[in-house]
């Protein structure tokens, strides 16, 4: 990314540059503060949190809250910690992300390179689906999941997430493929290549950046979803967010803030890692497609 930096910078003196850095650092502090609060307090004993300063570094350092949140904390009647739910989430997220990304890529391909009458309307209808408030779908969706016999299963959840992810994944791929030279596709057709062959040989290999954007977007949304997870999961398929909610908003008892914070960080860890590891590709991918309206 560094190489792609804008060649035209504000012409500025040392003072202005210092000011720029100062502003950026102030914002960095603003963004980091809540994470810092969670991290610092997740390694303090409970007494120290109650009596002390939430911004202070721990006087006594302990990993117990993390161990508790992961494998010992009471979630319902079982002292299992968050670990089994972590697995539930993973088993749900991976297929949901892969399927919706794959379908989005195909849709984007059709909508840009194999246009037919009414393709704009269809795209418009699909895009509008990104914006419906999810609360309205709960009851009818439950009915349909029941009719399909997949209520309360991971597959039911996967289907729900695929359906409501399609709008965004199609948008991303459509905008990306829109900028892809149609001449290449045309040339390939003349050479006798078919629909899938062109997709596989010509478009997919250059789709890296937009796949990254789509996967990040979908992974984050599906992993962080609470509403669907809580409503459509069964006792053996509840995702991490539901378990975290059970941990954090337990209706009575002593609030173990340190365990809550450790749990919150654990729940956020996969998405954090995805963002940090692939963040640089994210901007590149957005550049390549998503923001080109």
């Amino acid at each position, binding site marked *: 990314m560094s190489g792609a*930096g804008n*060649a035209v910078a504000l*012409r500025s003196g040392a003072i202005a*540059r210092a000011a720029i850095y100062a502003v950026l650092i102030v914002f960095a502090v603003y963004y980091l503060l809540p994470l810092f*609060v969670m991290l610092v307090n997740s390694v303090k004993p409970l007494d120290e949190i109650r009596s002390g300063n939430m911004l202070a570094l721990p006087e006594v350092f302990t990993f117990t809250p993390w161990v508790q949140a992961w494998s010992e904390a009471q979630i319902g009647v079982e002292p299992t910690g968050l670990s089994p739910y972590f697995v539930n989430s993973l088993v749900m997220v991976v297929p949901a992300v892969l399927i919706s990304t794959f379908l989005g890529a195909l849709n984007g391909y059709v909508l840009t390179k194999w246009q037919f009458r009414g393709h704009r309307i269809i795209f418009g209808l699909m895009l509008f689906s990104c914006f419906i408030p999810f*609360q309205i779908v709960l009851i009818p*969706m439950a009915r349909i999941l029941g009719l399909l016999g997949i209520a309360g299963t991971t597959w039911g959840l996967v289907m729900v997430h695929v359906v409501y992810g399609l709008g965004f994944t199609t948008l991303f791929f459509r905008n990306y493929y829109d900028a892809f030279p149609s001449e290449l596709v045309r040339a390939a057709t003349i050479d006798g290549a078919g629909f899938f062959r062109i997709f596989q040989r010509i478009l997919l290999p250059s789709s890296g950046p937009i796949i990254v954007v789509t996967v990040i977007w979908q992974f984050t949304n599906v992993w962080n979803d609470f509403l669907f997870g809580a409503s459509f999961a069964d006792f053996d398929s509840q995702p991490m967010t539901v378990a975290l909610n059970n941990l954090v908003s337990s209706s009575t008892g002593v609030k173990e803030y340190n365990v809550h914070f450790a749990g919150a960080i654990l729940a956020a860890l996969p998405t954090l890692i995805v*963002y940090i590891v692939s963040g640089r590709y994210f901007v590149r991918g957005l550049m390549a497609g998503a*923001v080109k309206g």
Partner: protein
Amino acid sequence: MPMRLRNQIQDLLPRLVLSPSFVLILIFVYGFIVFTGYLSFTDSRMLPSFDLVGFTNYFKLFGLRHWSTALGNLAIFGILYIVICTVIGLGLAILLDQKIRGEGVLRPVFLYPMALSFIVTGTAWKWFLDPGIGLEHVMHLWGWESFEFRWIKDRDMAIYTIVIAAVWQSSGFVMAMFLAGLRGIDNEILKAAQIDGASAWRLYRRIVIPMLRPAFLSAFVVLAHLAIKAYDLVIALTNGGPGRATELPATFMYSYTFTRNQMGVGASSAVIMLIMIASIIIPYLYSELREKRT
């Protein structure tokens, strides 16, 4: 321009490929919207019922003080959230685009809040803003006894704490969109303008920002729909309180549909929300899809 194809199967194949997705969306989005619209005219309470009662639910809805609060809050929250996120996002993107050392570190720092779920964000901010244990308490411990920051406890100010937390979560993402837009601008144009002696301010105002129009639009759409759908954050941060001061249409709809057993009223509020969303999104879709001729 669409491709012409000889083979008939080949001709149908694209539509066949697209159709499963389209059918899913048709049923699970538009079918459900119609269903919700129908429910809004029924006397549904705990579970859907199909006895029509006309516009009763809408009259009830607009007679509720609670609903006007929610709409008023959405106006405050929506406008502030969109404007502040855009300003911060654009500002940070421009600053970060000045060949900054350490961009690789700063970018993920700005971006990471988007990775967190609202439950996590809400819990952390609730703590931080609580005068008893959060910022105010810390300032007192550090000797600044007169420091006061208790917006989250204040009926008139609590909605602004939701803005603070929501801006924190999304502004980095907006920054990334603008940064991507900036990086996509052809350098030659900028160089030429610079040689012509345009000042930095003029350069940005006259050339760069107008060229970011697509990024502005994308940011607006993403932010507007997040604002209208805002639910989890409110629940985690204030749960609609103090009193009912931070109720938003999404929380209103949820509570009427699921906890108050007034599904009809909940459905009518959902219909109003859908109309609001449509009035923002459809003009955008229309302009976007019209002018693009490939």
